[in-house]
């Protein structure tokens, strides 16, 4: 009797499972052919982006210009969206016509899965000159030959330094090597009466604000994967060199003191940012910080410079981490032609790119926009334009598992920097294996 019940239950579950399998979302809209060149797009386009506040207003202004120049198209903008939400919406067939992401890490997954449409047919039809884009930008907007995204401005990372704190410690120039950076950081650090850090010269924790292995990697020329696609954490000596330098500075300060300092940090994207309130003398950050400082603390006396490279790799000086915002058309888009018009406008129209770059202080991605006389460039911002153009600048690779390889590494790094992991090589080998195992599960390789 009992076995008959179990049999019936299993049969029922099996039937519903088959139904579930049959009901898995499918969407073949991506296979629709693109329209002829003479057809004009019209209708409404939904547009999701992650910007908020002042930056969202800059986006709104450019979108208004687009609507004015394309009278048949209206854009419904949703700000403050994130990649996870967009992914879920696309899978449910409710994705936005146009999605803008800050993370180039999703490109591999979005291109291979078809979450974002292949833009090549549109690019070919409209004869878009892709040579307008720098090679590094072209590389992070496509994956294995599939171009499913276009760049909406780029981000580059460099060194911000507080001129007053440097001068107080007897320095007039920013550091050019990591040894100089460490020595200067020690001299610029001050403590409270109870021994806690009051002002830090340079925060070496790799999970502090924009500090991350990905953003540091170009300064050691560290590579994430080898030719066969396996993790290179344990085989590329640059990683061990990076972490050895980092740990020496952590040990100088004391990881407990750094943890306490980090726990008291202000919100990164506000006037409470530690650099903006003078609690950090030198910091790695993106070019957008200039706009934040202009808005939050216009009287802050600071400068920008390339982040120093490893002592034995001085030829890398001038380069840095490059990434950017990317934009694509969801596979379930009801109005891909109008969506493409918006993307084309945001990514290739010089006036729009310059206006947006001036508004949120990001780096333009086309040669024409970079050369535009309307682009507002001062000494501070020029540093980042130079980093962007430097051949030693690099980005991080895209994988089918997104940025998981960075997350797994970052998790172990917390152990490393707080002294709970002491065997560097064994730790790197362990993380490399985790990355390879997970990639194997995600791709079936």
């Amino acid at each position, binding site marked *: 009797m009992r076995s008959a019940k179990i049999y019936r239950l299993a049969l029922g579950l099996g039937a519903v499972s088959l139904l*579930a399998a049959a*009901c898995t979302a499918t969407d073949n809209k991506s296979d629709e052919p693109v329209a002829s060149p003479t057809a004009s797009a019209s209708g409404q386009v939904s547009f999701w982006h*992650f910007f908020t506040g002042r930056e969202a207003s800059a986006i709104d202004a450019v979108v208004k210009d687009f609507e004015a120049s394309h009278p048949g198209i209206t854009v419904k903008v949703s700000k403050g969206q994130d*990649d*996870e939400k967009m992914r879920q919406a696309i899978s449910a067939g409710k994705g936005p016509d146009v999605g803008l992401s800050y993370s180039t890490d999703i490109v591999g997954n979005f291109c291979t899965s078809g979450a974002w449409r292949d833009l090549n047919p549109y690019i070919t039809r409209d004869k878009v000159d892709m040579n307008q884009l720098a090679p590094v930008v072209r590389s992070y907007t496509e994956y294995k030959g599939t171009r499913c995204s276009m760049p909406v401005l780029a981000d580059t990372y460099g060194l911000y330094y507080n001129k007053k704190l440097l001068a107080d410690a007897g320095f007039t120039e920013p550091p050019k090597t990591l040894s100089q950076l460490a020595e200067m950081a020690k001299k610029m650090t001050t403590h409270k009466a109870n021994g806690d850090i009051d002002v830090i010269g340079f925060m070496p924790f790799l999970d502090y604000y924009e500090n991350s292995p990905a953003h540091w990697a170009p300064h050691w020329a560290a590579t994430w994967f080898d030719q066969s696609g396996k993790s290179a954490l344990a085989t590329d000596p640059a990683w061990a060199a990076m972490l050895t330098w980092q740990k020496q500075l952590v040990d100088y300060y004391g990881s407990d003191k750094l*943890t306490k300092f980090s726990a008291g940090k202000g919100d990164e*994207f506000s006037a409470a940012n530690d650099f903006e309130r003078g609690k950090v003398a030198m910091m790695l950050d993106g070019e957008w910080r200039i706009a934040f400082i202009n808005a939050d603390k216009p009287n802050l006396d600071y400068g920008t410079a390339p982040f120093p490279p490893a002592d034995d790799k001085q030829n890398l000086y001038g380069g840095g981490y490059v990434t950017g915002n990317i934009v694509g058309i969801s596979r379930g888009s009801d109005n891909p032609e109008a969506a493409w018009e918006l993307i084309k406008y945001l990514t290739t129209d010089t006036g729009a790119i310059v206006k947006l770059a001036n508004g949120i202080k990001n780096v333009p991605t086309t040669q024409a926009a970079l050369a535009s006389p309307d682009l507002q460039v001062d000494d501070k911002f020029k540093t980042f334009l130079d980093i962007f153009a430097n051949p030693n600048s690099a980005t991080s690779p895209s994988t089918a598992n*997104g940025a998981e390889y960075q997350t797994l590494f970052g998790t172990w790094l917390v152990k490393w920097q707080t002294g709970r992991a002491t065997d560097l090589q064994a730790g790197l080998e362990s993380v490399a294996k985790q990355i390879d195992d997970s990639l194997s*599960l*995600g791709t079936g390789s």
Partner: protein
Amino acid sequence: MTTLVRPATDERVVPPARVRKVPAPLRKKRRKHRLFVAALMAPWAIGFSVFFLYPLAATVWFSFTRYNLLEQPVFIGLRNYRFFFTQDPYSLQSVRNTLWLTVFVVPARIIFALVIAQLVIQIKRGGNLLRTVFYLPALAPPVAATLAFTYLFNPATGPVNQLLGKLGIGWQPLWFSDPALAKPTLLILSVWGLGDVMVIFLATLLQVPNEQYEAAHLDGANAWQRFRYVTLPNIWPVLLFAAVTGVIAMLQFFTQAAVASAVAGGTAPVGGGLGERLGYPDNSMLTFPIWLYVKGFANFQLGYACAMAVMLFVVSLAFTAVLLRRSRVFLYGAEGA
């Protein structure tokens, strides 16, 4: 002493040896009755199928596939389950964290709620005010409450460490930023919000017949004996309810750990979602549901996340069954098992 007697089970109705033929009008009436019952049950049946049965079956199916939400799932047999037990670097840690919370938070909440409820019903003046005060934290949304706690326990700027310093205590713990203290701090947060359990205990304690206490008192029972032999048997079903719901809640513990780890680990990256910072520090707050979420929605491995969900479902079911079975032994003796 009051002893509880297990109610007698119903006698099973023995079917007649010979089935008599039912007249047609009666058959029609019965069919109409069955249809009426089915119509009444339809809303529940539809809801159950759509919101429980189908998702459960879909989860089971996806657990045997490689599925990233965007592409068609590919059947890979037991590979997700094998990965969990042999290759996943953080599956064991997430299980350990969840078990830690289950073992410490559930009993702590029950014991403190019971003690507070006992004390509050003893207080004649101001009892109502105290009930309200102890219940209020349960009304705070979990996200807001956790944000408040991360502020209170911030080692650099929070008032708790400042108070410790003013009291001359040199110990300045890192609380949510210390892997050894992160879960105990979550425990403090959970115990602070025990008002929901306390109010149920309060109602149950007020239902215990006074005559039983008077009889026990006459028999010479002291306070502990009165609690052990009068209070406890009377409130046992409610204690069991609190334990079962508490265990299930802890097995699904997500919000507080996610918010605390995201805040203590730094601001969640703009646009990237929460997945990147969950579990901080050193994965000490990486509970099983958080790891499931990270794998599914940050690492795009929905098939694997479904396998984890199936295992969580089975474990929750087993925990509940064992708890119910053990409590039957406690309540009714060996024959009740």
